[in-house]
Structure formats: structure tokens, C-alpha cells
């Protein structure tokens, strides 16, 4: 078993250095949260070369914020405003896509977080207000969240909770 493990370690290293990814410069001012809870935590892409591949393969997250007893609560899906912010932090791209389509899983999740009653209505409202919620690809998550909540609360027939 020991020999097997050493052999495989060598083979892995060979394969990894052979198939190594391009190195990437760390992004300046990533629009995802600095708390380490945003999608940036997925990106071993800040580390150059073969480490990207191996890091992901060993399924290590290397992120303290996800420990079961040590995890920080600001990563929680949560409810309403804070929950919406956390959701936007991690799902911004997909949420934009679903909002533009007027339907989708991210829209559904948003409706659940905000305890809205009319799912279809929420989809239509986000699509209608898309330009205000996502005015440019450079809008921050905070700005997006504020506009999202405004849309959800602008129409009482959507039945979304406040708070």
C-alpha cells in the first residue's frame, strides 16, 4: 500500500506538471466579497500552474469560513436583506442570467429567501427592472442587492417579506 501510494504520487506529479494550467495574475479589486465568502473562494486560479489542478483534486477548500464549528455566520444563506446580500455575493452571475430570462433556479432561490408568494411575478419583475438592478457589469454586489430589494418590495402583489 505504501509503495502504491508513492508510485501514484509520482504519477500524479508527472501528470499535473504535464497538464498544468496557465498561470493567472490575481484579479485587482475582485467584485466578490473580501470576507472570503464569495465566489473568489473557489478560485485557486490565483495560484499559478500545477497547484490549481492539484488543489482542486484533493478537494481542499483551504477556507476557514466553512468549518462546521468555526464557520462564520456571514456566509449563511439566511433570510431577507442579509440573506439576499449573501446570495448575490455567491450567485451574482447566475442571478443576472436568470433575471434576464425572467425565470430560473436563482430567481426561485431569491424568492424563497425573501419569502415572496408569486414566483412567476418575481421573475417578470426582475426581468422588467433588469437595467436598474444590473446597470453595468461593474456594479457592486451591494448596489445590485439594494436594487433587487427595491424591485421585490415595489410591488405588493409579489408578497415578499420586508426586513
Amino acid at each position, binding site marked *: 500500500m505504501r509503495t502504491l501510494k508513492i508510485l501514484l504520487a509520482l504519477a500524479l506529479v508527472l501528470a499535473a506538471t504535464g497538464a498544468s494550467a496557465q498561470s493567472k495574475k490575481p484579479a485587482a479589486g475582485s467584485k466578490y466579497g473580501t470576507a472570503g465568502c464569495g465566489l473568489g*473562494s473557489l478560485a485557486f486560479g490565483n495560484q499559478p500552474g500545477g497547484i490549481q489542478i492539484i488543489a482542486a483534486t484533493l478537494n481542499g477548500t483551504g477556507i476557514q469560513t466553512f468549518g462546521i464549528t468555526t464557520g462564520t455566520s456571514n456566509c449563511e444563506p439566511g433570510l431577507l436583506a442579509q440573506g439576499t446580500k449573501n446570495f448575490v455575493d455567491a450567485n451574482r452571475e447566475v442571478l443576472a442570467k436568470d433575471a434576464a430570462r425572467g425565470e430560473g433556479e436563482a430567481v426561485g432561490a431569491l424568492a424563497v429567501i425573501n419569502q415572496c408568494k408569486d414566483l412567476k411575478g418575481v421573475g417578470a419583475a426582475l426581468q422588467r427592472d433588469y437595467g436598474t438592478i444590473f446597470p453595468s457589469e461593474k456594479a457592486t454586489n451591494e448596489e445590485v442587492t439594494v436594487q433587487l430589494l427595491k424591485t421585490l418590495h415595489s410591488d405588493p402583489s409579489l408578497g415578499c417579506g420586508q426586513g
Partner: protein
Amino acid sequence: MRRTLAALALATFAAGARADAGAAAADGPRATAAYVDELLVRARIMGLAEDPAWLRLGRWRRKPTGWVSEVDGLRFFRSFRGKTDPLAELASTLRGFFEPDRGDEDVHVQCRFPARLQFLTERLGIDPARLPRPACPKLALFRDQTAARAVTLVFSAYYLNNPVSSFGHTFLRLDKAEEARPGKGAELLDSGIDYGAKPDTLNPILYAVKGLLGFFPGQFNRMAYYYKVRTYADAESRDLWEYDLAMTPDEVRLLVSHLWELGQTYFDYWYLDENCSYHVLGAIEAAVPRVTLLDHVGAVVIPADTVKALFLNPGFVRAVHYRPSIRVQFDARAGGLDAREARLVERLYADGSTPFPDDLPPDRRAAVLDAAVDLVDLRHFRDLAVDAAPQAARTRHLLLARRAELRVQSPELQIPIPEERRPDLGHGSLRAGAGAVESTRGGAFAELSFRFALHDLADPPDGYPLLSGIEFLQTRLRLRLSDGQPFVDELWVLRITSLNDFGRFDLRPSWRLRVGAAAVNDAGCDGCLVPKAEAGTGFAKTLGPLDLYAGADAGIDARAGLSGIDGKGIRFGIGPGGLARLRLGRLAILLADARWQWLPGAAPGETFELRGTLRVPLGRRVALSLEALRAPTVREGSLVLQAFY
């Protein structure tokens, strides 16, 4: 006299009543200790410390030296002997439950080991009125936030772009509802639980070696399920298979409690055996003593095997759900477009402001834009997430703004579930074979073959990625029948083939590599076993049941006695290579592999290899494999019976 007697009687009664009240309301330390002793006696009589359910909670396994727990963090054990003594640990835990509550948050034994509390309370019939009731605010918060009503095991599919993530990955989802909810939106907010290594180095070599040899600590983590969906389905384009488990409310509660216990400690992370899938299964098994899971996985734990273990417990899997990756979603969208619309998608990907033809109706424009955005995501998701693709981000934004303006709601994407790709349906990960070979070099041979893991392109394709093969330790041993001389014909440490169906929207090349040792079949050292490392790249195309690959391979052979460059024992080869595979339903697979290599500076100056394989499955576990080889110095044919388990 009567008054004295009455007073005496009253006093006696009062004293007696007070004593009773004292015993019931707040046990004096002596009474508590006596009760604990009584419970311990009961535990001993029941043999509770060696009960499989208790052993699973502490992860004790039988070793030649006795019991040893897999848990490596010593805080997991109250007793200093706890790691190797389940009874000492039981006794210490039991005593700890009855320690007075000192008001320190979550430090009390009941807060640290809620699963043990649940288990021991039930089995020993502990009177809850006699237990102190410490507040466990962090534990309570964990229970509230996870709000688990059901449990799902999730498998994220094989991913060959990471040489070792090619085995897939499993983790848990704690469901807030018992059934998958329509539209699935709410599932994103469930809690995902996984087990992973916490690396302390960024050096790739150290990282690989440490991960394989148990030098990283592994810990359980919790994150919203949407993180998992973003990581696997979107960033890595891996399908997710979700297996809903049939667990009672008590078992779900025990699992949540046990995860809390495990969350405070760590295991040494061994990539091969005590890996993500192993510990996820171990946690389930601890919460559900009636199922057997870890016994069904081998020495090397492959994620798909852990999924199969679920099915070996009848009724344990309630339902299976499929969550398509972004690539599958895109392919489904692109498949619904006509030629003109497909061209538009390409143009929109390059330039988000490409105008639509006037006669294209709004719903078709919506379909085209939906596909175009998925294409941007497919190619740039990771970069988009870290702001490393500003051009793509701008294109995406423009496409989405145009999409929103159409005010058309997209119809729900219908994607048929690819049942034959379900990981639990795959052939066994271990393969062994026995057969006969007839060769122009040496005559007749008996052959024994063995492969540790996992799958090659000629094996039955169900349950595995259609166009990939990955093999660890494929070995072929032969015995020459004329004189009983043994030979090693091949010993591949690692062999990977990753084909990609090249198309208008998928321009990724295919690649393959093999590292190990194989018999030389040319005059360079005819019949010698020579260490080899070879890699190749090219392009592949699937046409119905036919898969074709053409590319180039380059490799190195090195061995003393090899007639290599300038007569030295090393030679370098480069040249074209290709393969063709015909999939005849579930009846058979026909595979042909050809390589020709120029060997500069060596003698001979070139070599080639032509292999054909016809593999016919005979039932779920057995296959008959007919193989032929044509090379410069040898022609052989073999018939091998293979078994998978």
C-alpha cells in the same frame, strides 16, 4: 406524651419528605456518581462499548493491536486512552454528561458530543430528569441553520481536466424539505457538507505527496449548497447526481449531531483511502446503524463505489435526481437551434451587439441569446468569477441586457436524464483477467491481468464518462507455456485517455498519456520490459456509435540495453497516433488503436503499434476480451476472460 409522639412523627415525615425531594430535584454528587456507576454497569452488561453503533460513532476499527480510531484529533476523545479504548471513552463520556453545568458556552460534554448523548440516552435509558441541562448555543444555531429534514448524497461527475478529480467527488446535502421541491430553487439554500483536506503548502509536488501520504489534516465543512452547484456544475462543468436517502427523523437528527462532533476534530487526509467519499459514507453509517456502507468499499476508495454501497442496502436510496452541468445545458440549448440561429450564437459570442435579422421572432431571439450567454459562461465562468475576463463580462452584460428587453420568459429547459451515465451503474472499479495468448514471439502463453482502477475505452461504458478512460496499475503477466518462463508484458502506472467531441461550440483538444513499463515490440530491445512515458494530443469526433481520434504522441523509453540514441539506453519517439471505437449498444465494443513513431538517432529508426480489441460483456461482472497486436517484431492474438468487482 401524644404531643411529643405527634411532633416526632411529623419531624420524621418532614425529614423523609425533604430527603426524597432532595434526591429527586438535585442529586447530590454522591447520588449522581452512583447513578453513573449504575449506567456503566448496564453498559458493560450490554457490551455497549463494542456495539457497532458505538464503534461507528467513534470510528474505531479493529486492527491487529486492538481498537484504533480513525479520528486523529485528540480532542475528540475525553479519555486519554480514548483513541484505542472504546470502553474508556464510553465511561468518560458518560461521566462527562453528568458534570455540572459551569455556564461555559458549548464546552459541556453534552454540547460537544450530542450524537453520543442521543445514542447513550436511548440505549441505556438515561433518565433525562437526572441530567444537567447546559445551554449549547452554537450547537443550537447549527441545528437551526441546517434545519435538516432529510439527507441527500451528491456525486459530482468525473472531471478529467484534473488528473485526479477524474474519480468524481461525493458530499452531503442536508435538506430543509423532505422531497425535492418543484423548480428546485429552494435546494440551493440547503446546507452542503463535505470533507476535504486543508493544505498547508502551495508547492505542487509537496501538495501531491502530502495529500497522498496523509500529511494534511482533513476536516468537515459546511456551506450553502449553491456554492457546490457553482463550483461543480458551473465552474467545472460537472453533472451532479443527487441520491435522496431514506432516513428516519431520529437518524437525521443523529447525523446532524454527529457532524457537529466531527466538525470539532480532524482526520489525516489520505487521498486514496480516507478521502472525501470515505468519510462522508462513514458519517452516514454512524447515524444509520442499520445500514452497512464502509464494508462495501475497497482498499482504495473510489467515489462511485461509495454510491454503489448505498444501493447495497435495499430501500436506502429513495430517489435519484440529476442536475446538468453548464455544458449539458448549453448543448441542450444549442440543439434546439437551426443553422442560422447557431451561426448567430457564434457571432454574438464574439460581438454582443450583433444585430438580429428582422424576420427573427422574439421567442427565437430569446433562445439564441440564452444559448449565447451559456456559451460565454461555459468558456469563462471561472474567470468571470474572479474578474479576470473583462471582455467576456462586458459581452455577457450586453447579451443579458438585450435578453431582458425582449420581455420573453424562457421556457424551462427540458433535459432528458442520461440514465446510462449514472455512476452507480458503472462496472466494478477493479478488473482482473485470465486467458491465453498466441504470439509469433514465443508461441503460446497463459496471461493474467489486473487493474486496480478504473475504466478504459473498451470497457462497458455505462456509468462512466463516454469518451474517457483512466487506469491505475494496469498489469499484464504472462507465462510462456513452452518453458514456464514468466514475463511482465505491461505495467502501466497511469493511463488516461480524454477524448472530446470536437464541434462548432466545443473546440477543446483531446489528449492521452501513459506512464509505466511495457514490452518493446521492435528491434530496439525485442521483448524487453522498458519504462515508458508518453503523451499525446489531437482531436476527436463522435459520429453516432463511432468515436474517432487523430493526433500525435511523443514519448521516452529508457532502459539499459535498449538500442537507443547513439546506442545509449534511452530513446525518444514522436509520431502520429489515432484510435477508432465502435459502440455496438450494450453488446460489444470494438476498439482500434494505432501509433507510428519516428525514433531519431536510434536503431531501429521507427516503430509502430496496431492494437485491436473486441470486448463483449457477459452479464454485469464479466466480459470476454479478444485482443490483437501487430508490431514490427511481433504478431499476437489473445482471448481473455475479465471480471469486474
